[in-house]
């Protein structure tokens, strides 16, 4: 368990942000931590959607229960956090 910095690019927001996550966090937890700095601040919530994490500009999302330590990210990796149906 260790702090791990990522570059959060949240759907609908205008700026990338530094967000500290934990290597034990799941992708859902990563999305929540990123949402804290965007949703209800500059991005309207979408309660009927789930938030998914993917590498910047990638087409595939990471599995929701995958841990940060298993994702193979570099420190400060840029991630897109997007609203999805599932």
């Amino acid at each position, binding site marked *: 368990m260790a702090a791990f*910095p990522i570059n959060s690019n949240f759907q609908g927001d*205008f700026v*990338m942000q530094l967000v500290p996550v934990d290597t034990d966090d799941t992708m859902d937890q990563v999305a929540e931590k990123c949402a804290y700095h965007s949703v209800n*601040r500059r991005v*309207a919530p979408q309660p009927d959607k789930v938030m998914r994490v993917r590498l910047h*500009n990638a087409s595939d999302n990471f599995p929701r229960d995958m841990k940060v330590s298993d994702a193979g990210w570099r420190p400060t990796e*840029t991630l897109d956090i997007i609203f999805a149906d599932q």
Partner: protein
Amino acid sequence: MYQIPRAEWYDLTRATNWTYSYVTEEEMFPEEMSGARGIPMEEWETYDEPYKVTYPEYVAIQREKDAGAYSVKAALERDAYVDRADPGWISTMIAHYGAIAVNEYAASLAEGRMARFAKAPGNRNMATFGTLDENRHGQIQLFFPHANIKRSRQWDWAHKAMQTNDWASIAARAFFDDIMLCRDAVAVSIMLTFGFETGFTNMQFLGLAADASEAGDHTFASLISSVQTDEARHAQQGGPSLKILIANGHKDEAQKLVDISIWRAWKLFSVLTGPIMDYYTPLEHRSQSFKEFMVEWIIIQFERQLADLGLDAPWFWEDLTNDLDVTHHGMHLGVWYWRPTVWWNPAAGAGPEEREWLEEKYPGWNKTWGKCWDVITDNLNNGREDLTLPETLPYVCNMCQLPIVGTPGNEWNVQDYPLEFEGRLYHFGSKADRWCFEQDPERYKEHQSLIDRFLSGQIQPADLPGALAYMGLGPGEMGKDAHDYAWAAAFKKQAEVA
């Protein structure tokens, strides 16, 4: 006493080369300082500055300029314009002075480099006057705001800003160090005077002078005009240097120096001038939108000048043109949201009438930028100011040192342009920022952005209050909304009436 006519002696006095007997030419003009690039001295002696002035003429003109600006200031001080000016305009002045005044002194050093090390005698002659110009600009832009320190500590940032690690100061220093303090004399003449001053200084000073007059701020307008007339003269040092480089087989390098300086200047002005023109200046006093001003004064003017010199438009010209609809809106929203991190009070400029103006000037604004401002406005009107204040840092670009921004809302498109170099992951806000880095990684690779400093433990405690302390922002200095959220309340009133 008979005086020899100017035309008979002028060329003699500006051709100040001589034959060295105690040192070699290489010792007299070291390459790293002069940047002659193997072009022989006879070629540099063909340097022909378009604007010619003698020292007695220079002194007489400058004395008149100073007398004019200082007497307007003295006469209007009793009028206490600052006490009744719109808070958005006050913020404009405070932001301007902090970003510009001390950098004028730095520009004096850059002019000094040309005055001593340029191989072209005409460049040395002009740069001598340029050194004096920039010294005057530093003094006058420190003296004028000093009179207002009694009104707010933020005015003191005219002098303080560049001595701090505020993010905006880091960005300004990174740019000015690159184009004017850490380049040879020829590169300085191109990057500082041609790339930066010909276009962008024109815009900051002409645009602001127009807005200042409209706003009734005659003191600021006269100061700005006084500075701009100097800029118009000494900005002409780069053109002759470019002609010599191109004529001697160095067109590619000339183009590269121009391209880097134009891009980097554009990014700095997108955060400094863009918000001022489109958001801070009261609606009724706006003469042109930032985009309109950029197209008229930068895009068209540079295209013409570059073509006249035999250079091409920069490879990123289309990107820059497209960014006129995006970048400064993002910089503004970023500055406003992270307002405790700046030394001025950002004016949101997002009230009902202002948003109509933005939609007219930038069609689609409401469904993109407006979406973010909708959430902010609702929070303010529902007593949730806390949600309109930051709890982390924006990610900044490793070239321009400014937040990585893009279009939000329905047309969301925020792009990072990363680069892994020698094991370090760099992030850039645009292709052109990354391209600047790739042209000379040795020059840039060691620089640490605010984020790098945060992650390496230089900022303690490692949280937002720690970052504010690192930036040197004390009580009474941190920015807050310039109009105390009156613009948001206007929407509430509108809804109640409806």
